[in-house]
């Protein structure tokens, strides 16, 4: 997949993850600790999304990791939020 396809797949995965975390954080049945944990996951993922949008994310190491893991793969579903 191209870098653009990878970025789109990763953003979608992140939003899915954030959506689940948000639902969990608002679950009335959840304990205080579970809600705090879900909120932490939501915020963490939001931080990642904002950093991924920047060109500064694409360092030589991260470029190399993308080339190794995703460049020659077309399996978009394999792209996770992390």
């Amino acid at each position, binding site marked *: 997949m191209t870098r653009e396809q990878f970025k789109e797949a990763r953003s979608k995965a992140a*939003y899915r993850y*954030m*959506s689940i975390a*948000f639902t969990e954080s*608002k679950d009335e049945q959840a304990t205080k600790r579970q809600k705090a944990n879900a909120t932490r996951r*939501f915020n963490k993922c*939001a*931080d*990642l*999304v*904002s*950093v991924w*949008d*920047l060109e*500064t*994310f*694409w*360092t030589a*190491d*991260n470029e190399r990791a993308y080339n190794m893991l995703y460049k020659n793969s077309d399996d978009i579903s394999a792209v996770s939020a992390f």
Partner: protein
Amino acid sequence: MIISEDYSYTNPQLIRMGYATLDIHSLIFDRYFTEEEMQQNREYAERYGTNSSEWAERCDRSTTEIAKQIDEVLCLFAKYDIHQISADTSSMEHYRSNWDLYYYSNRGWNGKDMADHVTLSFNKNRTVEENMALLAEIVEMLNHSNVDAPNVKCRVQYQTHKNEEKIKAEADAICERLQGQTINHSGITGKIKRLNDCWTFWKLRAKNHYYYIDPVSLIFENIKRDEKETA
């Protein structure tokens, strides 16, 4: 040992604009090969194939050697209070104390009783200044050590420490200003709404489905829009 600094998970613009400060996340010790060693590995893989027992043996030898080098590096950290590095420092009581660093390794996860990937994270309960001072001390120590670890790379992973209050206030102000307006967000036309504690984006004509927007991207998208309008 190679020491590199990784700023890829920081947000320079946010720091520049005063919404955040530079913070340290962790030190990551991982394998490192020179170009020459990588070429040798490639040649070996091509000669024997990556499914061969020869290749598996070479990988095992390499892992053992790197794990040994990482262990030697970690000996330098003996004076620090590291959570989870041993059975003594793995209790909940210890976790609640003011430890210096948090140890994580791939021991066991890699199917072996040794670690060739180690992460030392900084204590989030301490201030940015305290952690940065500790980092400076550690980097100084690593730079002046005599440990021979040619196949270990220490990546200093930075992060941004956000001023949440300031960001939230700015995102709220933007949301209020754009209330009811149809805008372009990340190339999609729609509207921004404050929903419960979150900022959400609703595509044009969407009735039920929406995306969460983190306040930082809301701020940056707004800057981009303003720049476009000015131009």
